[in-house]
């Protein structure tokens, strides 16, 4: 990459007044500075402020005062916080299992060539791109107790209706509705990997008498391993930190049955006006994201998809 110019070196030399910066480097600097500056302003600084805020107590924004680690000490002794973590993990594990299993299954089906396969591929994309708010409207409408289509079908076929938003059913409803939208994420990434598997491997397996199931175990699955691991990791972190679909469908209820740590953080900050306490919960979430990302970078080196030679 000899055509690249080391901006950093040149900048140092400019400081020493030895070399005049040429127009090309100036161009590079002026291209990169605004995005970097804005990235720091809108992402890095708010994140740091959020962490800093977790060390402040007081009600509302005007009464904020530094209280050290008090918010964290309070969280450790807070039953509601631990319960919310359990709810968050339950929702995440439940929804991610659905998405992974159905995602692989659907990818295997639409990977086959058949008539209308293009139409099916377009149809499965739709739920993924429509807003979560629309997903919430659609399913509240379908699952409504009094005039929902699903309950109509249930009463016609098995003669009973189900309250999909009760203490015992709400977590199931949330996990399945979230999966209706996000399974496609798994489908598309698995599909891309499936299409890059060398087809001669399948031919060889077929010649050796492997049936459909054996070909899946011996050829497909080993080739999917890395993709599945990455998808599992990303989907887990995103589902664990989900707020919108839960808040829109249940607001954490009924009776806190689906009160995950994201909804708790929102309630603490925006309902109880304890911004420090809310920020402490999101800082715990950030720590989780950081640990996950260390695994992500350590095991998969996703940053190598771009050339990072300096």
């Amino acid at each position, binding site marked *: 990459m000899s*055509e*690249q110019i*080391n*901006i*950093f070196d040149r900048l140092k030399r400019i400081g020493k007044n030895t070399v005049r910066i040429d127009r090309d480097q100036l*161009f*590079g600097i002026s*291209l*990169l500075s605004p*995005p*970097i500056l804005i*990235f720091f302003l*809108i*992402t890095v600084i*708010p*994140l740091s402020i*959020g962490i800093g*805020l977790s060390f402040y107590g007081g009600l509302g924004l005007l009464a904020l005062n530094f209280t050290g680690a008090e918010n964290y000490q309070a969280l450790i002794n807070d039953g509601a916080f631990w319960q919310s973590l359990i709810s968050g993990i339950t929702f995440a594990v439940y929804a991610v299992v659905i998405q992974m299993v159905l995602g692989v299954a659907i990818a295997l*089906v639409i990977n086959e060539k*058949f008539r209308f*396969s293009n139409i099916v591929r*377009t*149809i*499965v*994309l739709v739920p993924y*791109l*429509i*807003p*979560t*708010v*629309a997903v919430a*409207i*659609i399913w509240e*409408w*379908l699952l409504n107790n009094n*005039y929902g*289509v699903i309950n109509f079908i249930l009463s016609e076929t098995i003669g009973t209706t189900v309250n999909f938003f009760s203490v015992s059913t709400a977590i199931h409803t949330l996990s399945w509705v979230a999966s*209706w*939208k*996000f399974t496609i*994420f798994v489908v598309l*990434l698995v599909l*891309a990997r499936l299409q890059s598997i060398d087809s001669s491997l399948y031919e060889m397996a077929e010649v050796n008498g492997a049936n*459909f199931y054996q070909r899946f175990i011996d050829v497909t699955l080993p080739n999917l391993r890395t993709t599945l691991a990455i998808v599992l990791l990303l989907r887990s972190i995103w589902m664990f*930190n989900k707020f919108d679909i839960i808040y*829109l469908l249940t607001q954490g209820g009924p009776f806190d049955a689906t009160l995950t740590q*994201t909804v708790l*953080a929102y309630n603490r900050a*925006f309902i109880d006006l304890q*911004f420090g306490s809310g*920020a402490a919960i*999101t800082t715990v*979430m950030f720590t989780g*994201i950081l640990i996950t*990302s260390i695994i992500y970078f350590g095991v998969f080196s996703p*940053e190598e998809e*771009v*050339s990072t*030679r*300096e």
Partner: protein
Amino acid sequence: MSEQDENRLFGSVLTVHQVVLYVLAALVSVIFAFPVYWLILSSLKEPSAIRSWPPMLFTLDLTLENFRLLITDTNFPRWFRNSVIITSGNILLTISLSTAAGYALTRYEIPQKKNLARMLLLTYMFPPILLGIPYFVVFDFIGLQNTLLGIILAHASLSLPFGTWIMWQFFQTVPISWEESSWVCGASRLRSMIEIALPGAFPGIVAVAIFTFSVSWNDFTLAFMLTTEPSVRVLTVGIRDFMTGGRVLWGDLTAAGTLLILPPMLLVFFLNKYILEGFSMGGFDR
């Protein structure tokens, strides 16, 4: 499966494998399409027929009455306008910044590239709620609370890092030698970037546009936290007015929901290719 096998669908020979395949494909299609169909159909029914029991799963007795009421009797037009402004604003901001950053990161030597790449990917994992609380506090101090600009900046915090990542990858696919040969002919760096690198990375720009669109158009969390005044309410937040306060206005709700999903649906049908291309970089919604 060969061409011949495919043509047998409506012929006489159907293997067990094919039957299973078609049944599964049909099942998948129904599960993903029916809920959306039901929303759209409901929005087109007479306001009085919308909650009819038993539900009419199909009818040709359609009307735009729900949409007329939505546009004349509610704040929907304002919410829609706000959503359009925020989404367009963020697309402009993210495309221009991420294209500039992507080009510079590909073509120039910059220290700490690897850590920067990791930082972009780390930010991609951030849930909106992580920045929502600090944004609320900061915006309160600097007066960006209840402004469209504030929401645009908040959305850009989600779209700019990953947009930059996409552009970085796409500029790498444009060989430097193409630009070099234009320099030999006397073209400036700016000119070779605009006339050679940008067209080469065009699919990336479309992918970033779609990604940014979905961040802003779909966002509920940030807009919900950062606005309290009705005048700056966006579509995703405003729609909740129809669901709260005791009774649900299903006519308004389904009509607004239909208009909310219309733009992304159009994207799916017209830009399918770009969506799949951008997807290989890691998806759109989280």
